[in-house]
């Protein structure tokens, strides 16, 4: 009789433990609440804050640090040299020299002819 009572008590305890233990350690009901709270709350806190805070800061800092244009030049760039303004010096000298030589030759010829005409 005692055995029967003890066995029944042990089985009852087993049934109770089997039913209650999972509810504390794990389970179906409490789990959705903590996991949802634990996964959503930190995720918004972590993904929103780190991604919003650091991203504007480095971009602003990088813009200013790199200064974009570090030294702004004065005036307008001179990026065109016309043909008349370059290389024309030597050509003009050649033309001028040639004209002077031709004039000198003409003067000599004129003088020689004049002398010959006078002498004759």
């Amino acid at each position, binding site marked *: 009789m005692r*055995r029967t009572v003890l*066995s029944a008590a*042990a089985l009852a305890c087993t049934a109770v433990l089997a039913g209650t233990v999972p509810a504390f350690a794990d389970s179906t009901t409490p789990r959705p609440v903590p996991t949802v709270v634990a996964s959503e709350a930190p995720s918004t806190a972590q993904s929103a804050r780190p991604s919003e805070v650091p991203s504007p800061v480095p971009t602003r800092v990088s813009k200013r640090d790199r200064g*974009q*244009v570090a030294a702004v030049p004065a005036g307008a760039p*001179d990026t065109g040299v016309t043909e008349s303004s370059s290389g024309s010096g030597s050509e003009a000298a050649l033309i001028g020299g040639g004209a002077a030589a031709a004039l000198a030759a003409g003067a000599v010829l004129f003088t020689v002819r004049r002398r010959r005409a006078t002498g004759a």
Partner: protein
Amino acid sequence: MTSLSRRAFVTAATASLLAGCAGAAPHQVTTTAHRRQAPAPTATPTARTALGRSVPVRLRIPAIGVDTPLLRLGLAADGTVQVPPITAHDRAGWYRYSPTPGQAGPSVVLGHVTVGSYGDGVFRRLAELRRGDEVETRLENGRSAVFTVGEVRTVAKAQFPTKDVYGDVDRPELRLITCGGPRSGHGYLDNVIVFATLTGTRG
């Protein structure tokens, strides 16, 4: 305690332990799943960042047949920007105090329209560029920054738009500068300025 009751307690303890252990696994899965999802949004800003700093070595403008190596230009003694030397094989130059192409800010490239007795300069046809034309700058690191022309402006040298050309901007841009307009005794009265923005990368 009898042997039967011992067995019963052992069974109960084992059942409770198993139930406790079984519950832990799904919780870890949700945590790892959450961790796997977290890097995705942080990867977005890095994908949007511009090219790293690398000096430009070549410039290509297919629309006007330009393909030139790039010199590095600085400042002249009078504070004006240096320009490429007058040579038969004219080349363009990148102003080294401006951002490298692909970085936030206006990257400035200069070239001659004519080089005196040598004839046409590398930017002879720059004024022919139109909105939507593509400009590619090849960088020292092997990558390329591709820009698209947004505006071509001819301005009097006396009213050079310094702020528009060299002023800060919030994205990677490119300025191509040469001379243009009516000729004076030694040069030109105007500047031709091309404004372009980064639209892609290669390499």
